[in-house]
């Protein structure tokens, strides 16, 4: 039985690892690793006998690296190579936004900026471009959002592969990544005259639960309810649900204080329970300076505010797209990191919040695993 809870905290100044017993009362912090370099993607790969921890390492001077640890984050070393575009491609890797376990032993998948997918078959020592999405006919028309043109979501579901791109939208493969189709029916965009384009939406994050085949939740770029120009108002386009593997989507934003936000997380034991962090669309900060996580227990039909233990005022941080996760213990805890360097734990599914670390560097990404 897994005995330890491991958090990987990717920050603007390296990656930290926090470890706790299953009680999660106290977390011991290690790091930073990676020479103070920004980390936007991490992975705890629990498939082998020895867990492997991975972290991207976005070095502004010397380019992209992938770090790997085989001692539970006590030490990290560079893999033999990092993802790179072919020499004649014309694109150059700017960041790594997603690291996920692939279908086969030692296989890893990597979402990059500019938006592209790479695959490693040897645990990160060598990488190949996945052309079906990276060279998709739409690829040269995707545009960068404020965070860059990033492929941030990779979800495997048997031979299906869901990809989230900002700004590109949601793409679905049903042949193990050979070919991809833009699957954005009902996914709105506020920054184009056409409110529902075929592709080009600014998808922020997508989540699913293994026990609910076909169902997906999406945090999209909302905040366009008051738009009065061409195409008309677009209320509620920010929080969406699909029940047909992402082919069509419908709004589940009703009841939230804002449909703008970045992360979206599904409860590990109940696909009807989903969490978001609504933010003011103009400032990307907590509404009214009072942070809260919102939970739906009925698949998005209604929402409840969870804020016990969180600041009641004067808090204007952002939780970024990979900044919130949930563990899969019987009474799961949520965790979110902030752009102000705080790492919060929401015990009992977010009922009671506590700040675990309050002065880390800005936190783009948090991952959790039991090992």
């Amino acid at each position, binding site marked *: 039985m897994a005995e330890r809870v491991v958090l990987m905290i990717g920050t603007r100044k390296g990656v930290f690892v926090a470890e706790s017993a299953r009680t999660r009362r106290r977390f011991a912090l290690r790091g930073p690793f990676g*020479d103070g370099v920004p980390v936007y993607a991490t992975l705890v790969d629990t498939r082998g006998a020895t867990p492997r921890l991975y972290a991207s390492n976005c070095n*502004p*001077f*010397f*380019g992209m690296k992938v770090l790997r640890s085989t001692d539970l984050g006590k030490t990290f070393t560079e893999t033999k*190579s*990092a993802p*790179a*575009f*072919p*020499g004649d*491609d*014309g*694109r*150059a*890797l700017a960041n790594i936004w997603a690291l996920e376990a692939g279908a086969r032993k030692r296989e890893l998948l990597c979402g990059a900026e500019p938006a592209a997918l790479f695959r490693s078959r040897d645990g990160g020592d060598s990488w190949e471009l996945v052309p079906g999405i990276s060279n998709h006919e739409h690829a040269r028309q995707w545009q960068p959002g404020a965070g860059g043109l990033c492929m941030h979501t990779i979800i495997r579901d048997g031979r299906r592969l869901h990809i989230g791109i900002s700004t590109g939208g949601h793409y679905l493969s049903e042949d193990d990544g050979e070919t991809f189709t833009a699957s954005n029916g009902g996914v709105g965009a506020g920054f184009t005259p056409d409110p529902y384009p075929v592709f080009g939406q600014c998808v922020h994050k997508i989540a699913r639960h293994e026990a609910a085949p076909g169902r997906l939740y999406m945090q999209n770029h909302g905040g366009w309810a008051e738009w009065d120009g061409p195409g008309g108002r677009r209320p509620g386009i920010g929080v969406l649900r699909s029940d047909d593997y992402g082919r069509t989507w419908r709004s589940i934003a009703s009841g939230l204080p804002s449909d703008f936000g970045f992360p979206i997380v599904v409860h590990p034991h109940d696909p009807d329970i989903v969490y978001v962090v609504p933010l003011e669309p103009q400032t990307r900060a907590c509404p009214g300076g009072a942070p809260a996580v919102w939970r739906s227990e009925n698949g998005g039909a209604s929402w409840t505010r969870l804020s016990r233990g969180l600041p009641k005022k004067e808090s204007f941080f952002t939780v970024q797209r990979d900044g919130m996760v949930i563990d899969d213990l019987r009474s799961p805890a949520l965790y979110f990191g902030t752009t102000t360097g705080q790492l919060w734990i929401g015990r009992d599914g977010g009922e009671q919040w506590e700040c675990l670390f309050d002065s880390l560097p800005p936190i783009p990404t948090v991952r959790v695993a039991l090992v």
Partner: protein
Amino acid sequence: MPSVIVFIPGPLRPYCAGRAELPVDADTVGEALEVLEQSQPALYRNVCDETGAVRRHLNVFVNTDNVRDLDGVRTALRQGDVVTILPAVSGG
């Protein structure tokens, strides 16, 4: 063909067996980088991206002159020149 020295900053020395200086025969800065691409590929990937461009936050000097103020990677080299690779003053 002129023989020059390429000076490697500390953070990049692990990618070339710890060496601080690499002797190279090249007519231009670009040719010197091409030599490094063949002889020190791990080091080269830190200096140039996949398109062959020198990374945005790195500067390359010939003696005391930034090649950006000369002829870029086409800057000609002379016998005994020192080519220095340095991280730019940037970041926060």
